[in-house]
């Protein structure tokens, strides 16, 4: 499993990456692997508000449904639309092509409460025990 060092992680297995005044959000390698083949993703629309810790969408495999929780509060400014036709991208490339939404963040301090790579890896380890 791969957990890039430049990302921040949540305990719900989302990642985020700072890009200017935006934050790019997706799900982790661990999340895509435990879900299995992803067949469907439901994302918000540009302009929708998202709130830290609250659901912003849904991702589905054939046997499971998982809600997506926003790591930050803000407004959706871009959505990875091609995912709806090619949800397998999330399995294949969770951190680059498989990104889900970009959020214009009001308060970057929110990111401080998120996990770094080491902390996230430790968390997964504990969760599986």
């Amino acid at each position, binding site marked *: 499993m791969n957990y890039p060092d430049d990302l921040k992680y949540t305990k719900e297995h989302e990642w985020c990456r700072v890009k200017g005044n935006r934050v790019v959000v997706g799900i982790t390698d661990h999340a895509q692997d435990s879900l299995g083949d992803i*067949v*469907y993703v439901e994302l918000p629309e540009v302009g929708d508000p998202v709130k830290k810790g609250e659901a912003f969408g849904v991702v*589905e*495999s*054939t*046997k499971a449904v998982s809600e997506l929780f926003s790591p930050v509060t803000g407004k959706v400014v871009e959505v990875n639309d091609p995912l709806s036709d090619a*949800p*397998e991208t999330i399995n294949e490339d969770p951190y680059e092509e498989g990104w889900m939404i970009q959020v214009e963040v009001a308060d970057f301090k929110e990111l401080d409460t998120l996990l770094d790579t080491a902390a996230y890896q430790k968390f997964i380890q504990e969760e599986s025990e």
Partner: protein
Amino acid sequence: MANPTGWKPSMEAEAAARTFDVGAGGATRGIAYEEKLLFERGSAGGRSGVSLPAPSGRADPRDELPAELLRAEIAELPALGELEVVRHFTRLSAWNHGIDTGFYPLGSCTMKYNPKSSEALARLPGFANAHPLLPAELAQGSLELMYQLERALSEISGFPATTLTPAAGAQGELTGVMMIRAYHVARGNPRKKVLIPDTAHGTNPATCALNGYEVVQLASGADGRLHPETVRAAMDEDVAAIMITNPNTLGIFESHIAEIAAVVHAKGGLVYGDGANLNALLGVARPGDMGFDVMQFNLHKTFATPHGGGGPGSGPVAVSENLIPFLPLPQVVKEGEHYRLVTEDRERPQSIGKVREFHGNFGMFVRALALIREYGPEGLRATGQLAVLNANYVRARLKDVYDLPYETDSLHEVVFTDKALKPTGVTTMDVAKRLIDHGFHPPTVYFPLVVHGALMIEPTETETKETLDRFVDGMRQVAEQAKTDPEGVKAAPLKSVRARLDEVRAARKPILRWRPGMKVE
């Protein structure tokens, strides 16, 4: 030089081992035909498989009906003769495994033999040709039958009254929770929550959501049972009810049920019993005697009514005295020697109303009553006893090779896991698919959700000891093969008309109907 095909001598032997001639359940490769869809069969447009009087052509629909509503013949419909249709469905049938084909230990579904007598009886013209809105004097036979069944189900479950009308178990649940809600509303407050153990069928939480109740999930204990202290901790005056399946989906009797019911009742809540597993208790114990206030039957499980392909079901609901005013309509009543249906709210002002058109799945009532009449009191009790015996026999004979997550006594079904196979890489799904090659329908897999890699086996009382022995042999052989030839298990099924199907593709690009020129390859 490289071997382009990858062939090596040992492969033939391996292949032979994987495709044994006769499975433990007797399966071989039979004659199976490829069969196109009805719509893909090239045919002369003039063919038809029915014999009807020819229309006279005298009354012209164009004279009366607006032209914009009239359609021409539907061009995509097939045009087939009777024999073509007969062969089509006969060939399709050969692609299926039914109880009539072989053992079908699909846990929680109670796949027992469906008596052929019942089919003949349901087709008696007096039943089959009765219109649901016949005047009562022309339908006294149907009404008496419903009355008899209502009485029998009430006695079997230990409740004073039963409604027959819900169309299936899940609709029975819906009806039950609606009555619970109506009961609380009549006391001034519908309340907010329903408690549900983590072993419950998915229909339970879905039913609560439909009724606007929030679901509070309760953890079952290490023994697979729900404990009174768990319920006590979650119970308050916002809780409308608890929904409990007994025996639960692990096949374990909730032995604290009386105390749990007392805890719930003390705070004004009601106790809903999911009767999906009633087969285990027939003639041995009655939910109405355990503190339940309401429970649904699944006639297609406990009383062997057919449900090929996923229905029809029938989900009568039995209730305690305090819920009788809320029963749905219609209700059949006996007045002297005359039977009639109560259909109007004015006779039952507190009724929740109608949940299904007409009176319910009457055809299933005929079959269920026929079975109850043939069994009589001793036969009903023997049904519960032998269902439990068969499950315990299978459990005893398999527990040394498959992991048993709960040592607690089983009733009518037993849940194993794939934990013991873990070193081999063979999973529950692989075991299930390999059983197909042996000639068995797989058990229920990956349910209940609280058990990882669950294999839930419910043999039912109608199976012989020889069949159970063959199934045990098959299960043991698969476990053995998992050690020696895990790839062979993972390649299964090899004998079925189709290998494992690509469910991911089906879900990513749903094709839910035929269209001209459709290609799926």
